């Protein structure tokens, strides 16, 4: 008979819960080698023989209490009724610290299965476990696994089936804390047992008694346990008199003492070779003097990798789109369905294709980020950068989300949940859109080579990113000294040992990101491109102010003009006609209407419409320019290369100063809608979302205005630099 079971995965941060989750469910949730990758509960299903299993992956916790928001979430999830089994994953290379949580989970008296993950590392360290002893100690089965390689997953499934057969008559652990403490717990149990309601009856009174002794805020708040303060305080005072340790940490002491007793019995070290290689690397990487310069080298390499390695592939994709366009032009005569033909060529190929061209850059960027995440360097970077971050009133923990922001702002904003200090978290979220994300990358990759000579390109690119980071830091400082004033919170972050990332994990991450990018290109960007194409072409102008046709005829008939003069005159009239037609369209009207506001920052109506389109997704800026300038392709010297031909046109129309201002504005301005939505969700406030959008727009406008006007005044970048 098939049944349904609900199983929760619990364990310390970075112990490999999500890896086990992925192994069991076949899901591809993001994993990395630093604490706090999983920030929200994820559910997956799998079949175990006949049975249906619902598996819930929760954020990692060190303790079953409520000293941080994540712990609060995990606490609620684990104390909710309806859990059939807890799968406690531990990093078996650090057994003492990991089993601390196990002792607390065991007290819930919910059937449990302990997974000794990373057992390969434990073995390398020379750790030997007496599994039999440990099993009887915790009253549950223990399975050894290596999640990253998938070792032991079959055994885990077997043990799980076995455990599920004995849900009704499962063992309970034999955990005692010495006579004094057990008496105190027992005393409180006497008092709270009658107060237990149905809501909490699935959890033993003993569990709550211990939490009350610890003065855990979550449990103290429960209505069932009100009015017991005097009794609890008396017990605490009694214990304090005996042991002179404060209530909050008293139980932690007891637990660790108990674990070290158990470890003496059941765990042995055969050799003292602990984390040797990892420590050697860290002697350099987290060195007080070398650490920071090394970090900047790593960042430089990351961007060098993103731009340089992707270039050949970008050219390849560009060639492919050019070829497809050539094919369509050859086989689809301009007389048949001209609007559809133009929509396909100008709207879809120039709009969407112009964005897909940058797929290699995105792939390489995420490959680099995944590498930093999976090796464990991210936690080191946070460590060495903390000092600098504090100068701007942020902290090391804000740092990981900020680096992730270079990839995509949306997951980066979610990653801020690992920051305990609410003020720091809010500040980090609000400044995060200033980190130039991967979607803004195509804008720079298009514009930088268009306006700057090869020798300046790397510098301009670096400058753009640096401006974003600088503004983020200054904004953080400003926010922390005004709106989010106050003392910082406790900083505590674990540095995991370095691990060699599996090729599979990194490639999968890159692949998933690539698919997401293509999906975005195929949905949002395609949709917006089609809309923009329509806005750019309709309504069509039938009657022109000037009869360009007649003038062209007149020029052509004028025998006194040289042929070359004639050609250029004809082209001038054609361009004038095109300009007039363009201004008549929806885009033209909107752009023209807004142009006075954007002219001071160097934008004409075309760039203005591109900037509006970029609200949907930043890449649309590129596709809109692609669509708008696709129609003007009458230049005889237009290169074969699609991107080059667009760059050539841009160079004709705009100055490098304007090009720089476009990038600056795109960098600083309102982030894409997806980012705004996640800001609203994470700050739980519409008000903050609108303030953020308005603030960033004002920042972008004022900064670009100053740069453009000073540039004009001093004549910097008003001509092409050689």
């Amino acid at each position: 008979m098939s049944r349904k079971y609900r199983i929760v995965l619990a364990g310390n941060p970075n112990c490999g819960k999500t890896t086990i989750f992925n192994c069991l469910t076949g899901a591809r949730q993001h994993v990395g080698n630093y604490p706090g990758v999983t920030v929200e509960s994820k559910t997956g299903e799998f079949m175990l023989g006949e049975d249906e299993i619902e598996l819930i992956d929760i954020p990692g916790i060190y303790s079953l209490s409520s000293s941080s928001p994540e712990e609060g979430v995990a606490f609620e999830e684990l104390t909710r009724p309806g859990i059939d089994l807890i799968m406690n994953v531990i990093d078996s290379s650090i057994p003492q610290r990991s089993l601390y949580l196990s002792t607390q989970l065991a007290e819930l008296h919910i059937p449990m299965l302990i997974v000794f993950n990373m057992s390969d590392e434990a073995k390398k360290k020379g750790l030997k476990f007496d599994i039999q002893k440990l099993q009887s100690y915790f009253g549950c089965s223990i399975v050894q696994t290596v999640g990253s390689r998938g070792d032991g997953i079959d055994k885990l499934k077997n043990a799980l089936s076995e455990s599920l057969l004995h849900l009704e008559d499962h063992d309970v652990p034999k955990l005692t804390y010495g006579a004094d403490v057990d008496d105190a717990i027992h005393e409180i149990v006497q008092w709270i047992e009658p107060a237990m309601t149905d809501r909490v009856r699935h959890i033993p009174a003993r569990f709550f008694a211990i939490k009350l002794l610890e003065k855990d805020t979550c449990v103290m708040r429960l209505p069932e346990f009100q009015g017991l303060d005097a009794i609890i305080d008396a017990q605490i005072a009694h214990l304090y008199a005996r042991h002179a340790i404060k209530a909050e940490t008293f139980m932690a002491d007891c637990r660790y003492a108990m674990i070290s007793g158990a470890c003496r019995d059941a765990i042995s070290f055969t050799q003292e070779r602990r984390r040797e290689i990892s420590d050697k690397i860290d002697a350099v990487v987290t060195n007080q003097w070398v650490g920071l310069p090394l970090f900047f080298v790593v960042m430089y390499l990351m961007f060098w990798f993103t731009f340089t390695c992707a270039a050949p592939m970008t050219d390849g994709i560009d060639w492919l789109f050019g070829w497809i366009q050539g094919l369509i032009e050859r086989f689809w005569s301009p007389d048949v369905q001209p609007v559809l033909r133009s929509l396909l060529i100008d709207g879809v190929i120039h709009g969407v294709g112009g964005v897909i061209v940058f797929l290699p850059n995105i792939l390489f960027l995420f490959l680099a980020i995944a590498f930093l995440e999976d090796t464990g360097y991210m936690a080191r970077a946070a460590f060495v950068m903390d000092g600098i971050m504090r100068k701007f009133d942020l902290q090391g923990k804000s740092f990981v989300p900020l680096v992730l922001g270079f990839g995509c702002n949306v997951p980066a904003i979610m990653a801020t949940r690992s920051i305990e200090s609410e003020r720091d978290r809010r500040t980090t979220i609000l400044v995060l859109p200033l980190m130039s994300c991967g979607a803004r990358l195509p804008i720079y990759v298009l514009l930088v080579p268009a306006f700057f000579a090869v020798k300046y390109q790397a510098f301009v690119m670096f400058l753009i990113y640096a401006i974003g980071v600088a503004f983020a830091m200054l904004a953080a400082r400003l926010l922390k000294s005004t709106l989010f004033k106050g003392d910082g919170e406790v900083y505590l972050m674990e540095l995991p040992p370095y691990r060699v990332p599996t090729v599979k994990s990194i490639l999968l991450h890159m692949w998933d990101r690539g698919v997401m990018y293509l999906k975005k290109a195929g949905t949002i960007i395609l949709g917006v491109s089609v809309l923009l194409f329509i806005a750019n072409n309709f309504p069509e102008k039938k009657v022109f102010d000037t009869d360009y046709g007649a003038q062209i005829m007149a020029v052509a008939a004028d025998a006194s003009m040289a042929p070359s003069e004639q050609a250029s005159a004809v082209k001038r009239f054609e361009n004038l006609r095109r300009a007039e037609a363009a201004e008549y369209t929806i885009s033209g009207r909107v752009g023209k209407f807004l142009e006075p506001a954007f002219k001071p920052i160097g934008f004409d109506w075309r760039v203005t419409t591109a900037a509006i389109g970029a609200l949907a997704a930043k890449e649309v800026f590129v596709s809109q320019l692609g669509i708008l300038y696709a129609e003007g392709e009458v230049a005889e010297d237009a290169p074969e290369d699609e991107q080059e031909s667009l760059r050539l046109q841009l160079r004709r129309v705009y100055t490098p100063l304007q090009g720089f201002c476009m990038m600056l504005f795109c960098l600083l301005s309102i982030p894409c809608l997806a980012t705004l939505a996640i800001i609203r969700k994470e700050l739980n406030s519409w008000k903050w979302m609108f303030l953020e959008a308005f603030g960033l727009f004002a920042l972008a406008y004022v900064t670009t205005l100053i740069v453009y006007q000073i540039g004009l005044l001093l004549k910097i970048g008003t001509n092409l630099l050689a």
Partner: protein
Amino acid sequence: MKAGAADSSTTDSAECTLAELPVGCTATVINVKPSLRGKKKFADVGIVPGVELQMEAHAPFGGLLRIKVMESSLSIHRDDAANIVIRKRELS
């Protein structure tokens, strides 16, 4: 809160705070001062009396310390470390 300056409990010569432990040295935790914020958090990751720890590194600009407790590396802030009283182990 100024770190560890004025505290009623007297410390003998072998005792000092974690913030003062030089890189590479090992020590045993004696107690945690009541003034430490988030005591429970530190206790949860294993910083309890009797535990041995080692100073692994100091971060640039002096803010963070990196210590090894129970086989794992933790980074904590110097201000908090100043509230953790330790006894330095003699170098052998």
